[in-house]
């Protein structure tokens, strides 16, 4: 029985991502959110690039609809209560993640940065002075 569902978002389309190895049996899904595409007038080129990228993920199922509603149906269909995904600061995606959390557990793989800052110094020159050595160290 599968216990988790991998939900790929547009900021994390990497077939070699660790989450696919950690959850090898989990179904993998992507949802093209029609309201988002329409509201932000996303171009054909962006959508095609995402689509082409998704096709490198074996056994991916791609849906069209409203993200949260589709995920809700899939949670029921697969009878799972855990959603696996990747972190992004994108407020639209984090908004969906917050909604999903009402229905299921959410495991979010963090983005990796050489510095884990808690607050930004508001000017890049200052940021770079504070953190260049971390960025420039392998």
């Amino acid at each position, binding site marked *: 029985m599968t216990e988790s569902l991998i939900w790929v978002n547009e900021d994390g389309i990497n077939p070699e991502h660790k989450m696919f190895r950690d959850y090898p049996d989990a179904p993998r899904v992507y949802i093209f959110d029609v309201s988002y595409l329409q509201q*932000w007038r*996303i171009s054909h080129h962006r959508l095609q690039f995402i689509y082409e990228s998704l096709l*490198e993920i074996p056994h991916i199922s791609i849906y069209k609809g409203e993200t949260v509603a589709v995920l809700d149906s899939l949670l029921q269909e697969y009878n799972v209560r855990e959603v696996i995904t990747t972190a992004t600061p994108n407020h639209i995606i984090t908004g969906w993640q917050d909604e999903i959390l009402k229905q299921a557990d959410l495991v979010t793989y963090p983005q990796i940065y050489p510095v884990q800052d808690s607050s*930004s110094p508001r000017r890049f*020159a200052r940021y770079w002075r504070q*953190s260049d050595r971390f*960025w420039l160290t392998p």
Partner: protein
Amino acid sequence: MQQLKTDFTSREDMAAYIQQEFPFLESPGGLSPYLGGRKAGLARLEEFKIEQYGKERNFLNGEVSRLSPYISRGCLELEEVRQWALQHPLSKSVESFVSELAWRGFFHLVYQEEGTGILADLEPPKVSLGKHQITLPEDIARGETGLPSMDTLIGMLRETGYLHNHARMYLASYVVHFRKVSWRSGADWMYALLIDGDFASNHLSWQWVASTFSNKPYIFNRENLERYGGAVLPGDPRQGDPFDASYEALAERLFGGEYRPEPRRSSGNYQ
């Protein structure tokens, strides 16, 4: 909820299917040269000549990685690109490239902190922006401004879904400061068309150009455009050329003395 096809015979076949399923999408016809996927991203990384980057990155025909679609969509992780860069002997060029990757980290940090706050002015503007038009003029959207240089950049953006960093800066400055359009309208428009569209890097860069996330407005003149873009862009008519002036004269015309540039300005570098 509808499940979409995953078997296609070609990119053209996929494009036609997308058109049928998402008829509302803005489409210039034709395919973008940017093929999606991690494999294509890795191939591009392989071709990128990082040692030329430092000297050439500001030129529209200079060596830049063109990895942003792959990084923004997550096909390549920022961290793996950084590690790849640091495998090269550390030079000014490698350092310059890594510092550009850090711009992305910096913008994401601000976005993480501000959330949707980045969609509005983060700071008071340093020049008046209050009367700016809030809808993007049609001639800009269509790439029919009558200025061959700007129309070429808009055409590249629409036809490929990518623009060089300096080109994005020129276009944003043209829209906000020369055409007096609100940065938010310009940012939303560019976000929609870019394959690498990313609220942090895009909207905060527009704010940087506008001066609501920087200490001064970003403007360019004819000399700068010719120097960095001359090999790629067609010339503009000399009569009524909006860019043909010194920075001092341009600032006076555009901002009426609210902002006075220092006598010698650097190139198109962020500061």
